[in-house]
């Protein structure tokens, strides 16, 4: 059975579903949780032609603060449920790669991930992190699907 579960969080409703399920699962299996929040920066523009000054460090700081908040929140929720948990943060352009790498680094044997799984071109992008994790993972991956009420709440059309 699984002993250490990586739970990525992006602060979304879909992610919240995976977090709750992961905590329940960990409790049932007697596993511990690594709660990971990955801050995803915008790629810096090649040039703004003098239109503005971009301080990349400011963005990194904000992302780090966001990531720490979210990872700590999930780890706290796990601990409140009696599950041992660690909060981990990362800053990466490709969150999926960071997820797989952190799972490896922390010796996780299972990754929990939520997937939008929506149809249609614009929707494909929403599930792409889950897709990329599935492609790159070397350990088992539990893919959670959003509930109908979740989809409605998250729908931006």
């Amino acid at each position: 059975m699984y002993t250490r579960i990586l739970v990525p969080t992006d602060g979304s409703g879909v992610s919240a579903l995976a977090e709750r399920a992961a905590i329940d699962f960990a409790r049932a299996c007697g596993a511990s949780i690594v709660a990971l929040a990955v801050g995803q920066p915008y790629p810096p523009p090649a040039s703004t032609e003098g239109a503005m000054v971009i301080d990349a460090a400011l963005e990194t700081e904000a992302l780090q603060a966001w990531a720490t908040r979210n990872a700590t929140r999930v780890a706290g929720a796990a601990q409140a449920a009696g599950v041992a948990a660690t909060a981990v943060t990362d800053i990466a352009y490709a969150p999926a790669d960071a997820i797989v790498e952190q799972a490896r680094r922390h010796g996780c044997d299972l990754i929990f991930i939520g997937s939008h799984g929506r149809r249609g071109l614009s929707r494909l992008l929403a599930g792409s992190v889950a897709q990329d994790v599935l492609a790159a993972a070397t350990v088992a991956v539990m893919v959670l699907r959003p509930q109908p009420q979740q989809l409605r709440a998250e729908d931006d059309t």
Partner: protein
Amino acid sequence: MYTSILVPLDGTERSALALETALPLARLQGARIIAVHACAPLILDPDDNRPDDPIRGAWGRERVQLAHDTLAYASRRGNEDGVPVTTELSRSDHPYEAIIAAARDHGCDLIVMASHGEGGLVARLLGSETQKVLTHCAIPVLVVR
């Protein structure tokens, strides 16, 4: 958490790994396992195996035997580990359809399946049937490697 776990088996070692993962999980949760194997209707119907083509006939019989052996294996493992296992031989040309239908028919709340199946393209990042199940199903899927 889970009461009914669907485990698709295509007869390969990889899908056996999915079963081996599902068994202790089912035991822990007091859940039942639904083991499903899909086989094309054309192969399951002996009348369609052309008598004039002995190779096709032999292959067809071997294929049907694999189907039965695969499900018998699932039953045996269930008995050994004290987990109730329901087996289903699904007449279908498309494993992912059989998987989703079986999950729906048996009210499954989790699917445990291998990342890759019998397809030769192991270089694929994710097996084609696993991909299709993930695209179409509404319940959690544990993808095992």
